[in-house]
């Protein structure tokens, strides 16, 4: 066991634990965006940084391991300042309207004011073509954003990269950390870096197997069930009216737990609990998207959302 202090309080943590785990063990949660228990830490978002005595810069609590005698500050002026500015930089360049309430709370806590960099720049459609090391003359009239058209290229899920904070979670879930499919990676460089398939081909043309595990880990709603996307677009998505039913997938004998999100007696999305010992939150295409057989939307289906769901199912590529 390793002994350290966090905000003056002595904490004893197992060897190999992260500072984040040590903080949580004494009830001091830290904000995180790119961290997830089930994925290898990439420490890129930097909202979890803390101050460690003797360290020139702040350190990411999600990946830094505890060391004997460490003196950690999670609420110092430096920590608060960096977190505030990092949130502001994100919120001024990415659509964060669908992030977790807990993240919203942190932003309120740090008095995040994304407006101070100017008006947000409108949507552009060339982000996938940008060449590393070259960008247009920057006039400063607007705060540059990643706003771009939603990628709708299949009937199961959409990619709304205007919401992408580049947390790498989807890449990890698609790759080494879960699915081992490697259909997406980070492409480009700098502010023009983006999640992409090879040469930006549409998902059905690439390696995607439609397990939806990227959707499961995305913290911002950038990756979203097509059903949710269409319902939102029609103003018919009502999360407060939804129920979540936990059940076991009926396709094979592995025993993956499913959470069926139901609105108006219709399944509108499927997730799996991250702490479930079988799935760690991950599923396959059947468990994630193969629920249609329980709600055949025949001609007689008449709830207000049926039309939208049926259209989404049948649309394929738009």
């Amino acid at each position, binding site marked *: 066991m390793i002994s350290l202090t966090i905000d003056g309080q002595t904490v004893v943590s197992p060897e190999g634990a992260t500072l984040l785990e040590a903080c949580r063990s004494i009830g001091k949660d830290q904000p995180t965006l790119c961290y997830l228990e089930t994925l290898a830490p990439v*420490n*890129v*978002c*930097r*909202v979890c*940084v803390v101050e460690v005595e003797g360290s020139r*810069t*702040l350190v*990411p609590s999600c*990946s830094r391991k505890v060391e004997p005698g460490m003196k950690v500050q999670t609420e110092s002026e*430096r920590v608060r*300042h*960096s*977190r*505030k*500015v*990092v949130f502001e*930089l*994100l919120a*001024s*360049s990415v659509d964060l309207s669908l992030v977790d309430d807990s993240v919203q709370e942190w932003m309120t806590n740090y008095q995040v004011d994304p407006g*101070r*960099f*100017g008006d947000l720049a409108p949507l552009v459609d060339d982000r996938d*073509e940008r*060449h*590393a*090391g*070259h*960008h247009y003359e*920057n*006039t*400063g*009239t607007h*705060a*540059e954003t990643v706003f771009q058209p939603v990628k709708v290229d299949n009937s199961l899920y959409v990619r709304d990269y205007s919401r992408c*904070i*580049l947390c790498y979670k989807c890449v990890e879930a698609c*790759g080494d950390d879960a699915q*081992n*499919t*490697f*259909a*997406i*990676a*980070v*492409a*480009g*460089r*700098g*502010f*023009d*870096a983006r999640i*992409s*398939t*090879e*040469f930006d*081909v549409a998902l059905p043309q*690439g*390696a995607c197997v439609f397990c939806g595990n990227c959707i499961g880990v995305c913290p911002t709603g950038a990756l979203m069930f097509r059903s949710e996307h269409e319902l939102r677009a029609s103003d018919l998505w009502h999360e407060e009216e939804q129920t979540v039913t936990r059940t076991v997938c009926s396709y094979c004998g592995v025993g993956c737990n499913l959470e069926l999100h139901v609105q108006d007696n219709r399944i509108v999305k499927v997730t799996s609990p991250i702490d479930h010992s079988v799935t760690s939150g991950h599923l396959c295409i059947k468990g994630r998207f193969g629920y249609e057989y329980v709600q055949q939307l025949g001609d007689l289906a008449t709830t207000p959302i049926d039309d939208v769901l049926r259209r989404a199912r049948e649309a394929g590529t738009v």
Partner: protein
Amino acid sequence: MDIRLMDDAPSDAERAVIAALIDPVEEVGSHLAIGGHSARRHRHLLLPVLSAVQSEIGWVSKGALNEICRRLVIPPAEAYGVASFYALISTTERPSVVAHVCDDIACRLVRSEFPHGDAVVSSPCLGQCDRRPAVLLQRAGVEDVVNAPGDQDPFELVGVADPTVVGDRLLARVGHADPESIGSYADHGGWQALEKARALGPAAVIEEVERSGLKGRGGAAFPTGVKWRAVAAEPAPRYLVCNADESEPGTFKDRVVMEGDPFAVIESMIIAAVATGCAKGYIYVRGEYPLAASRLRHALHETRLAGQLGPEFDIEIIRGQGAYICGEETALFNSIEGLRGEPRQKPPFPAQVGLFGRPTVINNVETLINVPGIVLEGGEAFAAIGTPDSAGTRLFCLSGDINRPGTYEVAMGGALGELVDLAGGFVGETQAILLGGAAGAFVDTEALSMPLTFEDSRSRGVSLGSGVVMAFNSSRDMHDVVRRIARFFRDESCGQCVPCRVGTVRVEEALARSRSAPLEAGLIDEIDRAMKDASICGLGHTAASVVRSAISLGLIS
């Protein structure tokens, strides 16, 4: 690993280029299922083969990328992510000759506006600031070439002007020995240090380097002996890397050494390998330095023939492909490993976990070429040069409004003003001097009395960085210069971490606004603090330093 490839096939020419570097794997249709280790074994060939296709064909097509992925067992999305990371690799078709016209801080002072297009693109500093303005011609199927100075027609082959090179220790052979002849190198004192190092043995060599007080010349001034001892104590296999990615705007000294005295780089690396027991060495040469790379390649060949390299230690040259960030040591490792050139969070440090996850010595070119002298004369004699905390001589890159731009070697401890005098003094009335590079700081003429040492620069809150001394006289538009530096960092950020990826954009925007409105110094200050504190690597830590120094000197407002 189960890999789904694209359907695209390479052209015959593309296939030939790829086949020359990598053997085909067993054909299994468009799906490849190959086990973990054997699948990853060849990943380090990705950058060399992408470079080869780019250089022979002029761009990397879907068919070519697919063929590379098939042979290396790499998912196409990942390979595309790597290819699209580099400025010199194009994933769209383009003209067979592309002119990269430098419009960075030294060149833009003298260059007239030029029309951009498919075949003419703007470039960050090409490391030719002493003979500005510079152009790099990237040519499909032919060796790339540099025009410096090259102003009028960027495509006209004018070659390079004779450089000014002054110095009698590290630069003694440059311009005197034939860089293409191993015999000439020997005639000018080459190989004696290696012979002595082999006789002394590893422990004694490390001791001499420690005693010399040599500190890294790549920017961080870390004691070289400490680094070597740490790596030597780690289990084998260990690697040695010579960081020759020199891309800091205003810096060209490593190029001068590699072009003018390539055997010295190799001899120094062999001595380092003897001392630290490294199994293999890499020289990571900036992609924009075609002549340095070919001189080194030739020198390696001759050195091998002479029996100084072989199974116990050999050296490989890796060409960068246009990414300043790949000079950061851990980004450089990732780049060699065939990953995107994104820096790693430290700790762990390279001495423990470096290239291919192994203990690694990484040193700058200039750091390394100090070693033969230390071995020959002894650490103490070296320590007697310069000051106690800044031993030895240093290479400075003088450019801008200076009478004789060039590379100057001086003992550390002399005043900045003396160095400027050595280069014939300023042209015009100087309003600012850029010290240390784009990651350094501006100083004014009061700093001319400052001794050129690590400690004196540190106590003034500036840094010698990579040895840049670039002068700007009162006719220069400093606002434009500072904006170009902000643009540089925006372009060169790897994009991994938020403070740097977005912070560099916001700084550039604030500077753009200040053309017509008061400068938002407070905002820049706040962004800078977050970048310094919360970024992963040195690029983000220093990206706004120059901007802030320009503000505090009143150069921009």
